[in-house]
Each structure stands twice: as C-alpha cells, then as structure tokens.
C-alpha cells in the first residue's frame, strides 16, 4: 500500500487529495482516489489512464489484483 502511495505521489506531486484503500484487507484489491487540478479538461478515460500509467508496475507484476479508481479535478 505504501508502494502504491509512493508511486502515485511521484506521478501526481500536486495532488490535493490522494488516498489508497485496501478494500479487502488482503493487500491486492485497492481503491485509489486522486484529486488533482491537472485533471481539469481531461476526459475520465484520460484521467484513469494517467493513474494506470503511474501504477503500471504493480499492475503488471500482480501486486494489484483488482483496482478501482476515482479521479477528480479541482
């Protein structure tokens, strides 16, 4: 969970809110929430793709079994 938070902080250093929730307590089903002014003007698909890009490695190596994403602009 710390690793996911660190990756998201790196990708969204200006985020006004950034949370990672372990939905099941098993360390593999996560809900991430990112609020960032940088999302303004982007479609939801573009916003979620930025989050996927930030978490590409844990998605690829199987750390993340299931991911829910919530993104907000300013």
């Amino acid at each position: 969970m710390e690793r996911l938070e660190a990756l998201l902080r790196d990708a969204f250093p200006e985020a006004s809110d950034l949370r990672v929730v372990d939905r099941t307590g098993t360390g593999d089903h996560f809900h991430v929430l990112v609020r960032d002014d940088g999302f303004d003007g982007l479609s939801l698909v573009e916003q979620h793709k930025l989050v996927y890009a930030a978490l590409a490695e844990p998605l690829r190596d199987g750390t993340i079994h299931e991911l829910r994403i919530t993104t907000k602009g300013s």
Partner: protein
Amino acid sequence: MSTELKDRIQDVIDHEPVALFMKGTPDLVMCGNSQRALDALRGAGAPVTTVNVLPDPAIRQELSAISGWPTIPQVFIKGELIGGADIAEELAASGELERKLSEALGPDYRGRAVQKTEFLS
C-alpha cells in the same frame, strides 16, 4: 500475435453499438468489476454485445494494445472507449451514460436493447 484476432476485436469495437469486454458471460460473470460494468450498462438500457476475454489470454493482450487500457472490463460505445467499471458506474449515476447512448445510437436506443455474445476463440 495473430493479426486475425486483432482484426476481429477491432471489428467488434467498430461495429457493435455497445461492446463490453468482460471476464465471463452475462449468465456467468467471473469478476466483480465485469458485473459492475454490465449492471451499469443494463441499468441504462444499453444493447450490450459482450466478449468473454477468459478463453484466450491473447484477446486481452490484443485488446489492451488497441485501447491503451490495461484492465478488464472495457466498455465501448460506437467504437469509442468509455472506460472500465468505475467510469461506467460514474456515468450511469450521473445520467451521462444514457445521454451518451442516446447521442451515439439515437433516442430510441432502448427499443433496440438486445444482448449478444461474440465468441472470439
């Protein structure tokens, strides 16, 4: 990678009014997120064409290469990537999903609400 499979995936995306690439089938959904996306689309009365990605890992690989979206499910309306389960639910809750469907398929889209399953493997 088989270009034929890629072409068939692209064909579904391009030609089905609403395409849902999911784990399992509507009768036997194998993943919570696929269920959420299916429920959101059904709630909006969408004529959904589903593709089960589980029988062949190549379907998922080719699909993600086309869409740039790494996870399943994936929802397309008239060839446009709408997103995964979270976006489908968000758009359904705000009424935006129905607006998009109406815009893309015409205001009478509910009357054409048939559900199909495509088999790519």
